[in-house]
């Protein structure tokens, strides 16, 4: 059994930031990640990170109040306002800290951090490093982690690469640690810890049309869910307006922020034709642009009934080369076109998981000593719709906060290092489960189950939803869950068994998918990214509430909880 004061699951931005914080508190931090930290999905974030720095002349009057209000309004009032205020008040300090640690942000002519416009704000608020902001931020945090891996003046910092956490161990409402599988050996091991922080990222790969990394299976949300921690607001799934036709690789919102146009097969900038995007045009919030694009395609104004065009040609080669080099590179490598002289074929695709592990504004869940941060968590600061540039902010703000609170909790904890028995029992249970999975002689092919799940989610739990579609999807996912119990693996070896890894994750994906569909079915209103054709209006009376989903063997049990409205009264959301 291994023992660390605080275990952080996930080596993306939220996980590394949490680990650095624990380490700063002179405690022993260990990061468990199923991939090398810099292979995490955070690396792919492109456009930027929001903070009211006021560095751009057009945004010089920006303030935390404005940024917080835009966030709350963008969330369609489902975000917890106390949490939003906390995040935004901390935003500038976190950005400067990343800069001090070496993050190579792009610069203004007077040497400050440059900012660009993004959806949901009327002026430039999004700090960026070309169109590779996630890459630059994640490398910066990895560098700090490397620095303190070997530094004597701080607590221990240990990174376990290529370990996948399969179980969270909770004893009488207190977190005791995790069970994880080492990919290199195929062995399960118990990790004792006085506090555990989950920063396992989003669940995009429940959908076939996702911008997310392949590893974003949702397993990291399933693990605490199985242990009794509720998932919150999972029905809120963000669809990004501009993903590459075919592969769904993201074309950053920054492309529109820099002035790119969206056009249909008539050559019209169609965002002008919709009341909710008439003013902000291409930089209206994501849910709105994605819906209007889908309507264009459904009404026959798309190309091949599948895509529209993102036109950057008028920006000119120099701007494209300096501000959007990654976009250009992706277009050239994956489509063989250069956006300097050809428009980019784009379609909306799954992008972000607003919902997640239920926690409060300290990152703490209902289980003592168990915290969550980043995209895996639902504090909630994004509510029904996340503003572009706010989730990178979320990761570093709440990564730090979770690390801080977990550290304080450990310092004040009476029964340090307790829970051996619970961990041994959990390890035995996981070993039994693994043995069963490896020796199963069922007839189901898990890769087919995965494909069917991704298709059901894309077809029936997408941008526009109806009761009929959601009912069908729920039935489908439940069937797939039953079939999953009869899968047969294609490989039963111990070392680097990726067949095993991907298919352990599939079990988690299916349960998380079920929570999304059940939540979407129960929420009979339209809010943010969740649009019900059969209930097209927002209904604050019944649904200005969070959805909480608790695991039961027969499917999720749903409850509601209150939304914090400390600062602004809900209003109709108009842009």
């Amino acid at each position, binding site marked *: 059994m291994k023992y660390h004061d605080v275990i952080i699951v996930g080596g993306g931005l939220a996980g590394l930031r949490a680990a650095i914080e624990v380490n700063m508190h002179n405690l022993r931090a260990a990061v468990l990640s199923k*991939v*090398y930290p*810099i*292979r*995490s*999905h955070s*690396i*792919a974030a492109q456009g930027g990170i929001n903070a009211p720095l006021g560095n751009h002349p057009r945004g010089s009057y920006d303030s935390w109040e404005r940024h917080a209000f835009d966030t709350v309004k963008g969330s369609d009032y489902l975000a917890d306002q106390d949490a939003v205020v906390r995040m935004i008040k901390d935003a500038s300090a976190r*950005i*400067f800290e990343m*800069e*001090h*640690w*070496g993050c*190579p*942000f*792009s*610069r*203004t*002519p007077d*040497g*400050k*951090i440059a900012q660009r416009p993004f959806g949901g704000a009327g002026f430039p608020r999004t700090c960026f*490093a*070309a169109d*590779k902001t996630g*890459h*630059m931020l994640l*490398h910066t945090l990895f*560098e*700090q982690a*490397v*620095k303190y*891996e*070997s530094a004597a003046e701080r607590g221990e910092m240990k990174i376990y690469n290529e370990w996948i956490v399969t179980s969270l161990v909770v004893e009488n409402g207190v977190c005791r640690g995790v069970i994880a599988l080492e990919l*290199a050996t195929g062995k399960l091991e118990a990790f004792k810890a006085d506090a555990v922080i989950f920063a396992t990222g989003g669940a995009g790969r429940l959908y076939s049309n996702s911008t997310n*990394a*392949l*590893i974003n299976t949702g397993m990291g949300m399933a693990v605490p869910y199985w242990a009794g921690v509720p998932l919150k607001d999972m029905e809120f799934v963000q669809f990004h307006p501009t993903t590459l036709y*075919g*592969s769904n*690789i993201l074309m950053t919102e920054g492309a529109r922020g820099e002035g790119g146009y969206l056009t249909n097969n008539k050559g019209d900038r169609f965002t002008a034709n919709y009341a909710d995007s008439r003013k902000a045009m291409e930089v209206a919030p994501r849910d709105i642009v994605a819906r209007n694009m889908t309507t264009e395609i459904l009404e026959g104004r798309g190309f091949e009934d599948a895509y529209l065009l993102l036109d950057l040609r008028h920006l000119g080669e120099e701007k494209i080369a300096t501000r959007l080099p*990654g976009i250009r*590179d*992706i277009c050239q*490598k*994956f*489509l063989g076109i250069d956006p300097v002289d050809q428009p980019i074929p784009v379609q909306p695709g799954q992008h972000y998981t607003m919902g997640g592990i239920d926690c409060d504004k300290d990152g703490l869940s209902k289980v003592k000593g168990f915290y969550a941060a980043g995209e895996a968590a639902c504090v909630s600061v994004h509510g029904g719709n996340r503003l572009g540039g706010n989730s990178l902010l979320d990761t570093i703000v709440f990564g730090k906060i979770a690390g801080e609170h977990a550290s304080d909790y450990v310092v004040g904890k009476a029964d340090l290092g307790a829970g051996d028995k619970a961990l041994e029992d959990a390890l035995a249970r996981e070993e039994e489960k693994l043995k069963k999975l490896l020796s199963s002689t069922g007839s189901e092919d898990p*890769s087919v189950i995965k494909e069917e799940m991704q298709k059901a989610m894309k077809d029936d739990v997408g941008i526009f939803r109806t009761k009929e579609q959601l009912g069908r999807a729920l039935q489908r996912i439940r069937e797939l869950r039953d079939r999953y119990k009869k899968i047969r*693996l*294609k*490989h039963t*070896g111990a*070392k*680097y*068994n*990726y*067949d095993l890894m991907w298919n352990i994750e599939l079990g988690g994906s299916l349960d998380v998918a079920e929570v999304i569909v059940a939540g979407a079915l129960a929420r009979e209103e339209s809010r943010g990214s969740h649009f019900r054709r059969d209930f097209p209006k927002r209904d604050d009376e019944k649904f200005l509430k969070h959805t909480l989903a608790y695991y039961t063997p027969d499917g999720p049990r749903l409850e509601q909880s209150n939304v914090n409205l400390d600062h602004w009264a809900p209003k109709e959301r108009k842009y």
Partner: protein
Amino acid sequence: MADITFKVFRFDPGTDSAPRFDTFVAPLFKKGLTVLEALFYIQEKLDGSLAFRASCREGVCGSCAMHINGKYRLACETQVSELGSDGVIVQPLGHLKVLRDLVVDMEPFFAKYKYIKPYLMPGSPSPEREWPQTVGEHAKVMPSIDCILCACCHASCTVTATDPDYLGPAALLWADRFARDSRDNSLDERLRLVDQLHGIWRCHTIFSCQEVCPKDLDPTGCIADLKRKAMKRKLFGH
């Protein structure tokens, strides 16, 4: 749908006495099919024991570097059609121990990266807001900061082949990236780490690293830059 023949390197050092190539035939089942997608097809439909790493599938995370038809590249951004052949030969990264099939031991590679102290060392307390940096100063760290640590350069480096302790193109590129940063103030320390037997002077400027880099970076040029800095320091003391 044309069929493509994949010859894939297979080896489990624990059980196999020698590596072998397995042959798989996969249909060209979609337009723009990448080598990574084909490997997943093989793993999911033909042989579940095939081991390889992948994450982002868009050429930014550095997981899937391997040797494909004669060149080190990222499997996820290599389209089968662009290889111009109906035969694809896939092998693991060179100069790193094979753990299984296409999965190699990355630890020695990361150890070199860590050795050069890959983090900003500003040498004075941080200001309240950002360190000022001009657009021109910022441009100096570009494009090196795009490095995704995929190890294509390491695998292709002929010096690494003969001197396993050579710091190698990736680590040296990162040393140079920090040495170029106007906010960094530790040039002495950085040069001390790389101005040594297994450091910058080992580079023979053969440019293999630069040729294979999927991000079109120039580690050879970065090493030359460090050599210049080290010489200047020796001659003029600054």
